[in-house]
């Protein structure tokens, strides 16, 4: 204590300055800033959190509290906070916290569904969720009214509200192989899909909801016809064998196609939610509507085997209608069965012919009068074979110049077109008359005669065989032998030959002797009387020479006559 005391007095004093009044409060900026920062953070985090919504699902499969996201257009807009069972235990209540920006999806007509991997015939979707896990998809509604409780969909909706296009409805008798998601084709381009299907309240028809994407929706015109393009359409009818498909996908998954008919008059684009009818196939769709058809009747007193409902009706080779029904009837007067054939004919199919008639006729321009006029000009119906293999028949309306003039009775409805026997029937008749003629030939008699004739011929042959042939054989053998002898006789070294040659030599010698004699006589004619003088030995009487042997004559005689 004693040490510091003296120094304390010597300690310097600092010069005093006026203290600044406000320095004290500066430090309070720090908590102020902290409060500000905390406030900003709090506000930001409050702003970041949007409304909380509750969605009910049937199952919480793949949904995980704190992990499963809610995505709108694949952008995360919220998270599942927790899941719980609904009061009745039938479903799952999912509490979702949305981010601030996502409050636009919490409106009246928004839809929520769980995106899981889905493998269908039409394709595969949601594969990404295999890794990331399921998430809740949202389709934002257009309503302005807010809503916080939703009923989740089990399947993704077929069409989201932001897709451009139009909805249409189709009615059909049965669903066939179609289902939600089945594609719709226009000229074989997929332009839409079925988004919903529902049985009508009375359970008699099925209504399909379609969605056609823009810009193709404008092709759905008022006269568009939809038909089922599912699977493979195999048809065997009077026109032969027909196979029709849209695309491979429709073969498996089913699909629809549509097109305006007639194609050159597409008509105005149909309004949203227009109801159409679904036809079974393209042909049915293509057929003019029933309102345009004209009913005709035919009366056939002949076998109509091969004629079926739906068989074509052709006028001059142009198909103008179909057989509507076939009914068997009995004619009491003629005591014959006849077939009542009802036809649906579309005069429009006759094209300009009908149009120009309508324009130029003085009579009532209806289809009925048109056919009456044609009947007056000998229009006749015939059954003709369309396909020889299947035996299908069709009805041909053609002019028969040989037919009797006929006028259809007025007021007949449906109009009856007189029938004539078809070509095939005529051919059949001709063939049967030929057969009858052939039948009248006495084949049995001819056969018997032929049998007898054959029998005698057989005997003759036997005779020839037993008698003539051995004789003939003998003759031939003899002839053979004779010929052999002749051959022998004529051969170079045969006796005959040598005999003939010897004889010939003898004859030659005799001739020479005669010549010698003649010469001698010429010179000595007297010798005939006196005989030869004794000195002359040369001349020898020749006649006995013929009996001498050939060898002898050939060796000796020439020397004697030649010497003189």
């Amino acid at each position, binding site marked *: 204590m004693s040490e510091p005391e003296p120094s304390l007095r010597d*300690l*310097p004093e600092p010069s*005093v*300055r006026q203290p600044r009044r406000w320095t*004290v409060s500066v*430090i309070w900026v720090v*908590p102020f800033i902290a409060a500000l*920062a*905390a406030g900003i953070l709090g506000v930001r985090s409050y702003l970041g959190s949007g409304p909380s919504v509750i969605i009910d699902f049937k199952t919480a499969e793949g949904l995980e509290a704190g992990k499963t996201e809610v995505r709108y257009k694949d952008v995360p807009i919220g998270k599942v906070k927790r899941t719980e069972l609904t009061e009745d235990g039938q479903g799952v209540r999912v509490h979702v916290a949305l981010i601030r920006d996502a409050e636009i999806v919490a409106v009246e007509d928004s839809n929520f569904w769980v995106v899981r991997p889905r493998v269908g015939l039409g394709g595969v979707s949601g594969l990404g969720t295999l890794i990331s896990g399921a998430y809740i998809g949202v389709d934002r509604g257009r309503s302005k009214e807010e809503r916080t409780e939703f009923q989740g969909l089990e399947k993704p909706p077929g069409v989201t509200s932001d897709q451009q296009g139009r909805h249409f409805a189709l009615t059909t008798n049965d669903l066939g192989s179609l289902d939600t998601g089945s594609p719709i084709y226009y000229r074989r381009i997929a332009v839409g899909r079925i988004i919903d299907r529902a049985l009508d309240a009375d359970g008699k028809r099925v209504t399909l909801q379609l969605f056609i994407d823009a810009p193709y929706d404008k092709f759905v015109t008022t006269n568009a016809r939809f038909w089922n393009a599912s699977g493979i359409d195999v048809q065997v009818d009077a026109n032969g064998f027909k196979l029709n498909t849209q695309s491979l996908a429709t073969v498996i998954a089913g699909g629809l196609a549509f097109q305006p008919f007639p194609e050159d008059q597409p008509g105005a684009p149909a309004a949203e939610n227009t109801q159409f009818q679904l036809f079974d196939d393209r042909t049915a769709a293509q057929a003019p509507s029933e309102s345009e058809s004209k009913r005709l009747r035919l009366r056939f007193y002949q076998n109509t085997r091969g004629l079926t409902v739906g068989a074509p009706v052709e006028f001059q080779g142009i198909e103008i209608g179909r057989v509507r029904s076939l009914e068997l009837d009995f004619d009491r007067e003629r005591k014959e069965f006849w077939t009542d054939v009802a036809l649906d004919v579309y005069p429009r199919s006759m094209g300009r012919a009908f149009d120009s008639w309508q324009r130029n006729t003085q009579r009532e321009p209806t289809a009925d009068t048109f056919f009456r006029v044609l009947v007056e000009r000998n229009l006749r119906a015939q059954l003709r074979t369309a396909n020889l293999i299947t035996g299908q028949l069709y009805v041909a309306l053609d002019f028969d110049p040989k037919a009797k003039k006929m006028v259809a009775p007025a007021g007949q409805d449906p109009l009856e077109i007189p029938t004539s026997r078809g070509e095939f029937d005529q051919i059949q008749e001709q063939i049967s008359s030929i057969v009858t003629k052939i039948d009248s030939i006495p084949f049995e008699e001819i056969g018997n005669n032929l049998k007898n004739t054959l029998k005698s011929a057989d005997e003759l042959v036997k005779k020839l065989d037993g008698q003539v042939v051995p004789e003939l054989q003998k003759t031939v053998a003899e002839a053979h032998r004779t010929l052999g002898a002749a051959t022998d006789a004529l051969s170079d070294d045969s006796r005959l030959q040598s005999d003939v040659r010897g004889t010939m030599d003898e004859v030659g010698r005799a001739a020479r002797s005669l010549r010698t004699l003649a010469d001698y006589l010429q010179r000595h004619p007297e010798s005939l009387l006196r005989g030869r003088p004794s000195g002359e030995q040369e001349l020898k009487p020749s006649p006995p020479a013929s009996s001498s042997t050939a060898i002898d004559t050939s060796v000796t005689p020439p020397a004697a006559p030649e010497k003189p």
Partner: protein
Amino acid sequence: MADAGGDAPVVTATELNVAACAACGRIVRLTERCEGAPCPRCSAPLRHRKHNSLSRTWAFLIAASILYVPANLLPIMRTQTLGGAARDDTILSGVFELWTAGSWDLAIIVFVASIVVPLVKIGMLVLLLITSQRGSHWARMGRSRMYRLIEFVGHWSMLDIFVVALMAALVRFQTLADITPRPGSIAFGAVVVLTMLASRRFDPRLIWDAPSQPRQPAPIINTERP
């Protein structure tokens, strides 16, 4: 009060109107009115006690406790892994995650370092401030120890911030995994820094400055002066 009795004959520099320069250590004669005057040697402001210690400490402490709320409520880290949804974690959710994952030891460490320590620190400082302001004589030795403990333990609360900073820097695999800090980490860091500043601002001498008996300091000063 045991220690109070033991310190009875203490004479403080303030009572002697003497102060040491905080910057250069020069001892200067310093009367009450000269408070804040520059040191003759280094011209640093001379004070008997830390300037505005109580109010400054209060300010930092209030700021820290304000930020303590968002620090624990807001997520401090966002983890994004392949395919999975990004998840935000607050400190508490992290602790909970660790606990459920079985690493209860780690969970306890994180819980103590990140939640208990800042809270206790704030609480202790408030206690120190209030007692000092009221000039309480209660457990002055214990309070000094408490202050030293606060000073010592202060920086360990930064553990979480270190983790987040490291993870965010290291785990950057784009789509595979990505970790990004969230605003909570800033608040949390600010809480730690502010509590440290607050404890630094606090002058432990104030614990002992309380006029135990009004009559006692006066005679000491009087006797020294002559």
